[in-house]
């Protein structure tokens, strides 16, 4: 695990996490501001939407543009 975690950038993950935590209000504003980066983010992480009840942000994501068949970089437990 040591070798792998050494290459993880905690800043990026924690920033993404805050978008999720910010919930509806935060996400709506960010969607308005930075639609393109948000779109690509949710495309890649759509697989996590059933993981969290708190992650309301996921409900706001443009699901239709993130087909389930798309390969997700996130490995599942």
């Amino acid at each position: 695990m040591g070798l792998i975690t050494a290459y993880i950038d905690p800043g990026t993950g924690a920033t993404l996490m805050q978008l999720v935590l910010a919930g509806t209000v935060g996400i709506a504003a960010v969607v308005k501001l930075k639609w393109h980066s948000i779109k690509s983010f949710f495309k890649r992480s759509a697989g996590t939407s059933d993981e969290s009840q708190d992650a309301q942000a996921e409900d706001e994501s443009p699901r239709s543009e993130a087909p389930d068949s798309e390969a997700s970089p996130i490995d599942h437990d």
Partner: protein
Amino acid sequence: MTTTEPSSFRDQSSRLFVAESRFLRGFDERSAETFLAAEASGVVAALVGRGKLVAYTTVDPSSVPEIQPSALVICPETLPFVSTPPEWSFSMLKDAALLTLDINAELLDHGFILKDATAYNVTFKGAQPIFLDHGSVERIGEQGIWSAYGQFVDHFVSPLFLEAYAGVAFQPRLRGTVEGIPVAEMNALLRGSSRRRKGVLTHVALRSRLERSASGYGAERRTEVAATQLPRQAVKATIVKLRKLIARLESPVVGEWTDYEDAVPYADDEHEQKRVFVERAARSVGGGVLIDVGANTGSFSRAASGLFDTVLAMDIDPSAVDILYRRLASEGNTSITPLVVDLLNPTPATGWRNSERASIFDRATGDLGLWLAVLHHLTITGGIPLPLSLDLAAMLTRYALIEFVLPTDPMVELIGTSRSSEAAPYDLATFQAEIEKRFEVIEELYPKPTRLLVFAKSLAWDEASARA
């Protein structure tokens, strides 16, 4: 002589120095401008006024030319003792977390935010948490992000979850780290039903995933994410939610020592004799720092507290310390600091070159040490020979009040004299001979036939101060 405070190298924009007997913090142009703006907004004075942020005075930089950067130089109040997170009980870490969030929320209302959230930015004044790092204040506009969110979770939320949800005391783990519990490790630690507890799915499971997936991002994507901003109100909402989550956490850990006071091996009059002896010794030392080495739930610490400016009430049992802390905190006590300290494995020096975070014996020094019914545990249970325990007693404080529980006492029989070994003999003759080598005995008392109280002045202490 001025030296850099070893823990302040991470933030070069506001560095802390130890100069003579005071601390000085030097800010560079940009951080000075930020801090002065925060001062002008009134939020800094409000936090200082309510005891949430360490008080400070502003120093003329030209009077301390050795302090660099020097766009602004402040002198924070010196606290008698700076406790660190591995020495806190559950409620202490929880209150330190809530303080960090409250300060952050208040700063946000004024257009500022904390740029880091290490638990080492907080310490305790008595039983009140207080924020140490004036250099942590940063500006946030109408849009922004709390860049220290991840650090906050690693330092506060994860250790609290570990204890509240998995029933595992966090202190030993914090003793071996300077950056809290990494999220991937936390994700592996919380298994089974604890994964369904409040906050775990988001702050542990989902975050762990997001960090793993973010590790696959290219530089461009990373820059894009890093530039993401939220409305300030959304940042505030996250902090309010975190506060609610933490305020509900409770520790299920119950220690072996919390019932000790009810089972105290003294009759009322014997206990009264002991209390009077302790009080007389405390009065004769008069003032400074009292270190109660086996404080349990703190009855002797409390009895002597009026006679000292500061009392460090140490105990090995986190739940006994927690009980004492909650009582003191509810009374608003600012002189007795309860501490979780395992003398057999005390807080080590950690971090860069083992000097970033000082060991407890580099920080704790005092005028009177109370060693009430501690030695037999160290010798018989811990296997520490009496001379070594007494060496520590003689170097820790100027005076020591030591209780020797004779091998014939029921409490010693309970832990088993059979465990007393040739390597670590435990008997009255050895104790008295070893005391003579290190102390000048001032007064002795047998409050009961199987217990001896010795009040003595350390000879080693005099030698050490003579050398200095």
